[in-house]
């Protein structure tokens, strides 16, 4: 069952003004319930604009965005949609509201008007789910970037969100923080079946997805499984994006005339293929 649907979605900033700018042009896409979708694209490709439509932070200039069958343009449904779709943004500093971690996680449920004891148990549960229960009385500015992002994720979980939209959550983090965030997201997807829409320009992170959507200049350029996408090395490079090291090496070796099986994406696959190539008899 599809959870999010975009029909001919177009978004235009500053419409009718001199600096009018088409960020999204006629996107059709549906995202399945319980799936892990990565949206890849370079800066300015429209991927963040698309993400902000999912919980009605931006409304389509034309076309429709449906979340669980509800139209984001219907003001009466907006709060129900926001309850189901949690957002995590790029800058970890600009999305935490309270000066204490647990108060921040409580912010969402407080807005929903839930009873205090229930909020408390949700907050504890959410902090545990992201492995940050030890930090509940910390001040956010004393945490690392990766930890701040995990708190932001906990804030969404405490609202009992069914879907997490992460808008370049790792762009400002170091490799360690990036791994922390990605592992947390992957675990939530695997264990709790939360629908994930993950926006990034790091292709290493995209390998974990069920499906990749590549955006360029406001349009969907390609979509498919990570394997399908990353084996189109030339197309990806032309679009200003990277591919995993193994895929790139395999592509270049093949171009030199080496006979390697297609669709190599991971180190292990490449090692296996080269091993077979090097010692064909064994």
């Amino acid at each position, binding site marked *: 069952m599809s959870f999010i649907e975009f029909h001919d979605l177009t978004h235009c900033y500053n419409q009718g003004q001199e600096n009018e700018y088409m960020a999204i042009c006629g996107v059709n896409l549906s995202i399945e319930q319980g799936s892990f979708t990565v949206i890849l694209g*370079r*800066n*300015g490709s429209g991927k963040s604009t698309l993400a902000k439509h999912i919980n009605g932070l931006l409304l389509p200039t034309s076309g429709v965005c449906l979340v669980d069958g509800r139209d984001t343009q219907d003001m009466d449904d907006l709060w129900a949609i926001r309850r189901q779709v949690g957002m995590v943004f790029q800058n970890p500093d600009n999305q935490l509201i309270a000066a204490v971690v647990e108060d921040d996680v409580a912010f969402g449920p407080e807005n929903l008007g839930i009873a205090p004891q229930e909020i408390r148990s949700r907050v504890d549960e959410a902090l545990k789910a992201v492995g940050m229960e030890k930090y509940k009385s910390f001040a956010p500015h004393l945490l*690392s*970037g990766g930890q701040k992002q995990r708190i932001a994720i906990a804030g969404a979980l405490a609202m009992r969100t069914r879907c997490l939209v992460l808008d370049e959550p790792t*762009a*400002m983090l*170091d*490799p*360690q*923080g990036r791994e922390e965030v990605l592992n947390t997201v992957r675990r939530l997807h695997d264990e709790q079946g939360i629908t994930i829409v993950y926006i990034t*320009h790091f*292709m290493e992170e995209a390998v974990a997805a069920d499906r990749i959507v590549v955006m360029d200049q406001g349009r969907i350029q390609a979509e498919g499984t990570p394997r399908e996408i990353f084996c189109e090395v030339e197309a990806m490079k032309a679009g*200003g*994006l*990277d591919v995993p*090291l*193994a895929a*790139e*090496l395999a592509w*270049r*070796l093949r171009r030199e005339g080496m006979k390697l099986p297609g669709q190599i994406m991971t*180190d*292990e696959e*490449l*090692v*296996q293929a*080269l*091993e077979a*190539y*090097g*010692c064909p008899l064994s």
Partner: protein
Amino acid sequence: MSIELKEVTYCYMPGTPYERYALRQVSVSIQDGSFTAIAGHTGSGKSTLVQHLNGLLQPSSGQVLVDGIDLKGSDKEARAAAKAARRRVGMVFQYPEQQLFEETVEKDVAFGPKNQGLDPGLVQGRVEEAMNLVGLDYASFRNRSPFQLSGGQKRRAAIAGVLALHPRYLVLDEPTAGLDPCGREDLIRMIQKLHRDWKLTIVFISHSMEDVARLADSVILMNHGECVIQDDPDTVFSRDDLLQAAGLRPPHIQRLLRKLQAAGVPVQTRAKNIEECLARIREGLKHAQ
């Protein structure tokens, strides 16, 4: 000619309950003409270290010498010399676009040279040169507002603002942070050009061991405020023990080659970039057959 740090120790807020040693007895040297990388995870003291290079921070103990001049001048004459020495070190902070403030790119880039008291004709020459160096065409960008540029262009404008000071050493704190693959590649090429053609000594902080491997000729590895090792990249990346303790991994290319080696393909594991990696694989396969 070089920058030398001799047993530099730095302590934040000494004598308070918040006292914390960010650097302990760090001795490193940055040779003239080198491309030096500083690696280490967040909180290892990298940023504190680079702020000593142009005297933004003064060591709690120890010495910083730029071309033989101690940045902590003891008398009036020595302080003037120290000030001149500090000017030889240009500093580009993380997300440098956040320091832009003028109405036009030209005025912003001119801020540094003007502060140095150069006369207007000279300032304009410096600005034009610096903008062209970073790939912002002087004629077409000089009158644009820095705030209307794209992310990558803003960063270039900010770097031009430092280059206009005519530094001999250029220090960059994670210059590619937040850029997409395309923007990263462009910026790295630009920095390489500055090193190669303009003979600038480059010092850069990076989280990406891939970038360190392909760019640097000297690596300073930091962990818990100490310099664990300073050596050429091959030597540093062969020290798994030190890397692991510092929370880092060797570059992906080398990890892959090691996996190949372990699988019985006789490859050498030293490779700086993807071309060298391909060469190692070809050699290895030839050897195997």
